[in-house]
């Protein structure tokens, strides 16, 4: 156990009941809360397989999932080639985006940082656009990358993300003010977006159309091979973040303090950027740019585990990110027929209030 227990803490118990509860027995309630999150995630996964344009009863789902033959062939096709890939895509994308948002919030020491705000998603889009336009494939194939193509597009998207992160981080080091950094991120996003539009202008009408469909964002239509690449990138990114968790805690104190604690700041920053870029890049390559999950979920996670320690926070963020993405995907099916709400509209409805809450609750940002 990392926390000393015997220390007396009078008064605080009554004065701050909410903050005391989480750390009363390190591990205890936190584990319970995480277990609840896991159960919620499993329920959402089941719902995500059962619900859709056609209702499949749990019995039917279990039959086609666990028996290799027999059962309803239509149900089998729906589950195995539509709903399971969709479920796993949402699961990976949610945990990847949320964790990358957490990494960026820590790296920039800014509670409002995430891949959309800082222009990192835009960087990923540019990477995707460049690869697809540069290769013999037409843009129509976006969202349908097969085999080696999936790796190439993921790598390009991650590289685009990393490039934008480096630019915005160097701006952050010059200006210091968190608010200005957010504005700078939006400017970089706008610039990169403009470059992508120019690329689109020189591509065919079909390509432009499919690109704009892709840029609406969706967890649907991914193949199993794409899911495999996305899952691999997500696991690698989450693993790197977990590996960095001790140093990420140190980053929260600020550069001079973390250097005085013996941290190799440059190495930690580069690894954090690489991890965040991989997570954002892979998700954006397969699902399009998806906003607000990275911004909002770390705040949910902090509220659930009631700590800023990354070792717990990363686990909570990944879990809650996956659950939130699945929930958003379920809400997007709300019309009940073949029509689906744009996923970004749903995530914005979840995420934007969180931003407002953060803004209202905090002292003015940049006052330091």
């Amino acid at each position, binding site marked *: 156990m990392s926390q*000393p227990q015997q220390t007396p803490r009078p008064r605080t118990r009554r004065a701050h009941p909410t903050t005391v509860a989480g750390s009363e027995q390190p591990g205890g309630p936190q584990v319970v809360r995480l277990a609840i999150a896991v159960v919620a995630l499993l329920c959402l996964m089941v719902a995500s397989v059962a619900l859709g344009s056609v209702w499949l009863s749990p019995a039917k789902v279990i039959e086609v999932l666990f028996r290799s033959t027999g059962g309803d062939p239509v149900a089998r096709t729906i589950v195995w080639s539509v709903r399971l890939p969709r479920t796993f895509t949402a699961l990976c994308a949610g945990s990847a985006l949320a964790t990358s948002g957490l990494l960026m919030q820590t790296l920039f020491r800014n509670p409002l940082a995430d891949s959309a705000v800082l222009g990192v998603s835009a960087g990923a889009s540019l990477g995707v656009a460049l690869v697809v336009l540069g290769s013999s494939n037409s843009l129509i194939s976006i969202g349908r990358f097969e085999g080696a193509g999936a790796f190439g597009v993921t790598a390009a998207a991650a590289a685009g993300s990393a490039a934008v992160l480096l630019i915005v981080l160097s701006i952050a080091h010059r200006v210091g003010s968190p608010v200005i950094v957010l504005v700078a991120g939006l400017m970089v996003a706008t610039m990169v977006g403009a470059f992508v539009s120019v690329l689109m202008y020189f591509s065919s009408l079909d390509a432009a159309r499919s690109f704009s469909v892709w840029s609406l964002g969706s967890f649907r239509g991914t193949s199993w091979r794409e899911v495999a690449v996305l899952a691999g990138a997500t696991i690698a990114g989450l693993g790197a973040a977990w590996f960095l968790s001790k140093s990420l805690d140190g980053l929260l104190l600020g550069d001079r303090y973390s250097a005085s604690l013996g941290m190799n700041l440059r190495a930690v920053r580069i690894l954090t950027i690489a991890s965040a870029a991989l997570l954002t890049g892979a998700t954006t390559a397969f699902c399009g740019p998806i906003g607000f999950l990275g911004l909002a979920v770390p705040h949910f996670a902090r509220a659930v585990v009631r700590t800023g320690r990354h070792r717990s926070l990363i686990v909570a963020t990944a879990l809650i990110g996956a659950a939130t993405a699945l929930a958003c995907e379920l809400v997007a099916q709300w019309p009940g027929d073949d029509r689906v709400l744009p996923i970004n509209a749903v995530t914005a409805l979840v995420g934007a209030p969180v931003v407002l809450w953060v803004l209202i609750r905090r002292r003015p940002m940049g006052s330091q």
Partner: protein
Amino acid sequence: MRTPPPKLSDPSAPLLGITDLAAGYRTRKLTTVTLAGVTLQVGCGDLIALVGPNGAGKSTLLRTITGLQAPLEGRTELVGRNVASMNRRDRARHIALVLSERIEANGLMVRDVIDLGRHPYTPMSGTFAETDDEAVLEAIEATGVGPLLDRRVTELSDGERQRVSIARAVAQQPALLVLDEPTAYLDPRARVSVIRLLRDLIQAGRFAAIVSTHDLELVVPHCTAVWVAAAGTVVAGAPTDPIVRAAAMQHLGARFVDRDATTHVEYEV
């Protein structure tokens, strides 16, 4: 209370020895020398008041001592070893830092911040050994932050935050604590309490400390030596030293007065 393990084999040798140091900034085009010809010593149990007008190089000197900035010339030796050639982790086990900037640490509890003091001792996983738990407990007792442990850092007053910052530094078990204007943004009451805490920690034999400060009247009565940074160099000596007094008078308008066997500070405006 357990005092930290002795880090010095020869008790007569200085803890920190600075020889012919030149400090400043070197860019591709030009070198700016802020301080030159600086020779200083810190012994075990010393409390050094580093004073001087703004821009005189106090922070530069502290950055160089803590190894965050390479010296332009000269050497800084801590427990007989060159600070510039120590690795990061090793350096962090010997020197701790407290700054004037308010620690923000989004979401961290006070106990998390104090635990971070063990950063240079714990493995990559951050797992605590028994000695780490002991060091943190001791730091909590020594600094009296027990009642704050389960509060978020962002909920604390500026004075409480600085106390927590010092607790974190104590948990780091350094031989030398460097404080860069630790009282700069505090109200008068918190200033007094932070300096008293520092005095008590030094008297308990935990470490030697160098405090850069503008609060001469608070620090000088407790210190064992005064370093006056001004005019490109540092004048050092006991608070009773006439050369130090002349420098303090000339550069800060501060008059050192002996009363009740301590040196007090009065200003001439």
